[in-house]
């Protein structure tokens, strides 16, 4: 069942450029970026049992890395941008994680929220470095050495960049699948289920939580670089707490117990947001209602409806 669903999702995403109009494709692009970020968030929440309200920090970090490299440093190769974003995220995640994983539950959530807002303030206030509220432009990157100069912006985004992002999501999903089905992943689940028992079985609870935090941050930053290219801008709102909240919303919507939950959550969220925003300026109100309905009636999210009892590894 899970395999069939996965196959269907892959087929649909690969075929999308032939089926969907460009407008909808430009909506799918952020969904791909969010999917990668959510794979990371779900390693933290679904697998390790730590709910972060500051994951947007790393998404923003990825976006700003892309902005600084393409605009200020003139480095256009997207592979280098991705590597740098992953590296920067890991370097930031180690000290932040060391402080955060000493706490669990709401205290962990609040600390991650605090760090996210700290970064937001930094982006907002250090105008000379970060461009303040205007942010930094993100230039068009080269993909595998190709500049695609003959393509206009929409053609570039819905063509080569779409497939590049899709390929990256595929790699990220495969990588994450390996992580959650590895011995390391088993230990993370043990930590989630019962940290005391895990400790008594010689599983170093804090080290595992920290490792999950760092991996999640790297996925967040890679997702962030993908988000920044279509919008062409890295701005402080990427790190704002409501953005972290949206990430958690997407995860709950898709279902954190299922491996495909992040992907489903991201796609449905983006398209739903687009539809509801075009109908009413009170879209946040509508989303609040939807979130309440999901949490109360479908705590296992959309994937819980589609694939009952297939717990994410």
């Amino acid at each position, binding site marked *: 069942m899970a395999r069939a669903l996965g196959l269907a999702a892959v087929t649909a995403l690969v075929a999308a450029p032939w089926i969907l109009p460009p407008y909808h494709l430009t909506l799918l692009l952020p969904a791909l970026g969010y999917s990668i970020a959510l794979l990371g968030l779900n390693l933290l929440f679904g697998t390790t049992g730590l709910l972060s309200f500051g994951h947007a920090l790393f998404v923003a970090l990825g976006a700003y890395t892309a902005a600084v490299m393409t605009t200020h440093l003139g480095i256009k190769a997207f592979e280098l941008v991705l590597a740098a974003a992953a590296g920067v995220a890991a370097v930031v995640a180690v000290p932040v994680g060391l402080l955060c994983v000493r706490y669990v539950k709401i205290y962990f959530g609040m600390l991650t929220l605090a760090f996210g807002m700290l970064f937001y303030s930094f982006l907002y206030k250090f105008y000379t470095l970060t461009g303040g509220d205007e942010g930094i432009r993100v230039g068009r990157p080269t993909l595998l050495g190709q500049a695609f100069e003959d393509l206009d912006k929409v053609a570039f985004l819905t063509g080569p960049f779409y497939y590049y992002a899709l390929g990256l999501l595929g790699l990220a999903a495969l990588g994450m699948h390996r992580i959650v089905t590895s011995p390391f992943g088993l230990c993370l689940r043990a930590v989630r289920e*019962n940290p005391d028992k895990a400790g008594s079985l010689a599983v170093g609870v804090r080290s595992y939580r920290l490792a999950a935090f760092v991996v999640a941050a790297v996925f967040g930053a890679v997702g962030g670089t993908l988000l920044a290219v279509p919008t062409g801008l890295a701005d402080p709102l990427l790190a704002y707490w409501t953005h972290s909240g949206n990430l958690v919303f997407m995860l709950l919507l898709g279902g954190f117990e299922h491996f495909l939950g992040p992907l489903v959550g991201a796609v449905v969220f983006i398209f739903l947001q687009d539809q509801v925003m075009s109908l009413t300026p009170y879209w946040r109100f509508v989303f609040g209602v939807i979130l309440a309905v999901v949490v109360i009636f479908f705590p296992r999210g959309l994937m819980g409806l589609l694939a009952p009892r297939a717990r994410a590894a």
Partner: protein
Amino acid sequence: MTLLEAVDVRKRYGNVVALDGVTLAVAAGEFVSIIGPNGAGKTTLVNLLSGQSAPSSGAVRFKGRDVGGVGPVRLARLGMARAFQLVHVFPALTVGETIAVAVVSRLGRGRRWLAALAHDRAVWEEVAEVAEIFGLGGALGRPARTLPQGDKKLLDVASAFALRPELILLDEPTSGVSTADKHAIMEVLVGAARRVGVKAIVQVEHDMDIVFGYSDRIVALQQGRVLADGPPASILADESVLAAVVGRPPAGAGRVR
């Protein structure tokens, strides 16, 4: 050979003296029971012996190393495992996965974060072996939360045994288990210890039937001090100790292994 020893350990909580100079040693090959009335300091002693907390003074040594307050992870790596009084399982993990956590941990596989655990034959062979010893071989794929209480207890202990410790600390191994099942569980435990290579067992136990039936040596605590330390026969022969610690002669007294 002495595996575990406590030398004149004291533990104070504010003004309350929970342990007041306890000395004991556990040698390889021994099954030692710690008994005593409520408040005698049994739990405090187990917490000290298992590195959970550090003594206020005195020393706790395992294989000659000072292990006061080093925590369960370090101790488990040194070769001491502990099973808690209350059943500790990973509710959503299967029986096989639960035991695999211990095996992965012991083999140092936890750092392999891109390896496929499902294809790790060394891990799963050992999981199957331990599960079979504890009679859980038929339940490998069942989530721990769906097991009956007695099997949860067995799984809890089985995962501790899967660390292949040299010494295992059992905190009331038969608490919450029906009288009929108690002896069955103890038989499994003692048999498993032999097969897994556990050299010594230390247990805290209230059930005197179990204590006198299985121990090589009994350490009786009272008000934070060692009241008596000797084989079951000598404890049984001392009526003052019996009165203080047991309250009455045990029902199964004289039952010898």
